[in-house]
């Protein structure tokens, strides 16, 4: 117990809480941005058994936030690397690797073997699957999720408390703009949110403090704004008895509105294909920077000037970051345009990836 001396001498913790940690088993779903700090600190603090569900390999773009991995690890499976390094940190605990993605076929079996589940996944399909499986299996679920500079935290399905579906009843449909995984994140954000998740796990296991039951904590790291929202359990969401047939992975496409990366756009423009490029930004934004091939019609005027566009030819819609263009593109699809593409990331992505001489704003 010498290893845990700082916790066993801590007022309100002591050897009795430490024993609870060591008797507990925790399943961490995902060993990525959130999973890495969760795993590091749960391992260090002495959770008795830690399961990890992960099936991905290390990529270079992981390294700005997944601090457990080394540059030389690229291409190797995260699961084995994590298990090895965590055991080096603390050989006294048990690490159980689950070398798979979580699926409707394995979720209940895997989750059933643990006391607490931590959702460190990065897509809605898994998040709803984890929630439903935890409700069915009766396991508390420590939730964390990130977006750009913001994080969300809660403890679901804990002692009769609210579930993920009590806040967000329905999984976003394929095409909602929420899941475009490549929006970017500041490296330290998952560190902050993951550490909070590890802290909530300790609270759930030991009973110290106030876990985020029936609460959603939002953290804005740009302005250090922390807001706590009270949420109410909805009985129907606590009474799920079977998993859905599938938990569709949402993708970055909206009906017939398709996605176009700036690299693909560059290729199309270079090939001289018959592409209409529509820039829907305002006049002052256009002045700052634009692509010479673009037709410029500010968002508010598009519907009135739609006759300037050819509904049968490919049409790519561009704005600053890809949000307004998505709305316009969706509307054009509804109006019967046949091949509409949203330029993901907008002209900002173009400036970042294609033309670093272009002025950004």
């Amino acid at each position, binding site marked *: 117990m010498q290893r845990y001396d700082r916790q066993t001498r801590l007022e309100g913790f002591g050897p009795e809480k430490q024993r609870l940690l060591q008797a507990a088993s925790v399943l961490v779903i*995902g060993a*990525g*941005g*959130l*999973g890495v700090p969760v795993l590091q600190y749960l391992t260090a603090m002495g959770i008795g058994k830690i399961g990890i569900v992960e099936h991905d390999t290390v990529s270079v773009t992981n390294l700005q936030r997944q601090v457990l991995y080394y540059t030389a690890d690229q291409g190797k499976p995260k699961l084995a690397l994590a298990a090895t390094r965590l055991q080096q940190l603390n050989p006294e605990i048990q690490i159980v690797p689950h070398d798979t993605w979580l699926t409707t076929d394995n979720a209940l079996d895997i989750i059933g073997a643990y006391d607490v589940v931590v*959702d*460190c*996944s*990065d*897509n*809605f399909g898994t*998040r709803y699957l984890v929630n439903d499986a935890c409700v069915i299996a009766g396991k508390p679920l420590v939730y*964390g*999720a*990130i*977006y*750009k500079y*913001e994080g*969300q935290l809660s403890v679901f399905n804990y002692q009769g408390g609210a579930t993920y579906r*009590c*806040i*967000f*009843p*329905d*999984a*976003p*449909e394929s*095409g*909602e*703009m*929420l*899941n475009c*995984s490549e*929006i970017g*994140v500041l490296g330290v954000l*998952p560190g902050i949110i993951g550490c909070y998740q590890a802290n909530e796990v300790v609270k759930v296991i030991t009973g110290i403090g106030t876990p985020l039951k029936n609460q*959603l904590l*939002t953290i804005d790291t740009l302005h250090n704004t922390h*807001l*706590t*929202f*009270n*949420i*109410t359990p909805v009985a129907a969401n606590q009474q799920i008895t079977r998993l859905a047939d599938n938990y569709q992975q949402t993708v970055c496409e*909206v009906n017939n509105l398709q996605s176009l990366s700036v690299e693909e756009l560059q290729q199309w423009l270079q090939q001289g294909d018959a592409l209409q490029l529509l820039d829907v930004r305002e006049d002052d934004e256009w002045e700052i920077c634009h692509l010479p091939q673009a037709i410029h019609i500010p968002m508010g005027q598009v519907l009135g000037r739609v006759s300037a566009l050819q509904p049968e030819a490919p049409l790519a819609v561009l704005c600053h*970051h890809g*949000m*307004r263009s*998505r*709305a316009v593109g*969706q*509307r054009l699809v509804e109006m019967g345009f046949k091949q509409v593409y949203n330029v993901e990331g907008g002209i900002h992505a173009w400036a970042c990836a294609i033309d670093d001489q272009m002025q950004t704003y």
Partner: protein
Amino acid sequence: MGLLLFGVAKDIAGAALVGLPETVTNVAELKQWLYDRYPAMQQLSSLMIAVNREYATDTQIIRAGDEVAVIPPVSGG
């Protein structure tokens, strides 16, 4: 009345805080106002609305001085 926007709702509106007209008196009207003003928000099937830091259903009244928040789900990890 101030409307706090989170996640992709903030991106769609282009601001973290927007004014809310007094004609909006409940959550259902708020959602309709959001959809009219920001059509892209119609795509968000789950959109949590909170009034004074409490989760609010469509019938929840919104009064002058209330703090209203729009919180979409986020999936990043």
